[in-house]
């Protein structure tokens, strides 16, 4: 299976500041206000892009990047709110947050699937709603765990990131960032911060027999 165009990079170290965990709901309020304003501003753009992609078959690179930042900003807010990451996100949707989204460049899309995108997304949307419930329960339980331990249990963080990744792929599909349907398959690669390994001595290759 080829790589999904919407991928997650998790470099979070699981450590949590008890103080910011305790006040997380309050601290996230400015982000929620800003994201609401941004969301309203996106409606006409998305409607126009829908018509554009039906006509042209793909999205302009600049617009693709801009909508990508909008989706990435939502990833950062949710990761922060639901304790999947610790730092306060910068409200510009740029890369560099411990739970981040990588987005492949725009590809050509089948016009028929673009026209019916709102209908096609329904099964994925149903999954997303259920996975969101899991995500919020993890956020709720994780709040107590983080307050008690000063860190987020890795199982909770991984499952939460998985749910958030599915949600992001669903939104990316809906907002025409990609023609690829959201994937339930997980990936173990590149989800952890790189661990420095001691250099391994490679024994010299034996002389070939002649």
């Amino acid at each position: 299976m080829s790589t999904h165009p919407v991928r997650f990079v998790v470099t979070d170290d699981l450590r949590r500041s008890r103080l910011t965990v305790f006040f997380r709901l309050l601290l996230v309020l400015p982000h929620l206000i800003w994201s609401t304003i941004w969301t309203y501003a996106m409606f006409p753009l998305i409607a126009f892009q829908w018509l554009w992609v039906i006509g042209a078959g793909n999205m302009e690179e600049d617009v693709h990047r801009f909508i990508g930042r909008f989706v990435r900003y939502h990833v950062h807010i949710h990761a922060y709110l639901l304790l999947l990451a610790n730092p306060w996100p910068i409200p510009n949707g740029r890369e560099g947050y411990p739970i981040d989204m990588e987005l492949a460049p725009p590809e050509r899309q089948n016009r028929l699937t673009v026209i019916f995108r709102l209908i096609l997304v329904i099964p994925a949307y149903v999954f997303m709603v259920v996975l969101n419930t899991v995500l919020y329960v993890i956020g709720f339980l994780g709040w107590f765990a983080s307050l008690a331990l000063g860190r987020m249990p890795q199982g909770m963080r991984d499952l939460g990131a998985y749910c958030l990744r599915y949600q992001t792929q669903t939104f990316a599909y809906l907002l025409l960032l990609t023609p690829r349907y959201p994937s339930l398959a997980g990936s173990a690669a590149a989800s952890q911060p790189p661990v420095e390994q001691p250099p391994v001595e490679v024994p010299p290759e034996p002389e070939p027999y002649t």
Partner: protein
Amino acid sequence: MADAPLTQASADTHPIRLVNNDDLKRNRLTVFFRLILAIPHFIWLTLWLFAMYLVSWVFWLIALFKGRLPDGIHAFVSRFTRYSTHVYAYTSLLADPFPGFMGAAGTYPMDLEIDGPQQQNRLGIFFRLLLAIPAFLLAYVLRLLMNVLAFVGWFYALFTGRMSEGIESLGAYALRYEAQTFGYAFLLTGNYPSLGGAPTA
């Protein structure tokens, strides 16, 4: 970053592990009638569950006194937990064959490996039901997820004759968490249900 199968639950070190030997192939006829075919199991599972509720108080007192479940009781509760896993795997389309009724080990593609009884903290046993509440909450949500997966998987299996690997991996993860929660609540183990082996983003 390449997509890969979810981390297998059997790889973790929890005393209750899920072993997944399913080949993803599905018989369309039994998939179509799955809920009807499962009725005898629903009846038997309900009876067994009722019996468990009646005797689990006695088991709780014995465990509280001894600090662990006696071997015979542990084997009985293991069979019940394993049987419920087989039935849920069958009804959620995570496996294809019709399960046996006795919860015997090694008889089903989606099976449980359960370690022998361990000494447990008596305080942990005393407050077990209270301690299990967060796990039950999560298990409940994961059960909801499994039902949705089964619903979508039903159409998928009917059309393709096989189960989607993504659906099965996530379903197996949820099923394992549920089995570990049962095992913890029914005193099979003192280890809290593990979210380890979670699908990663």
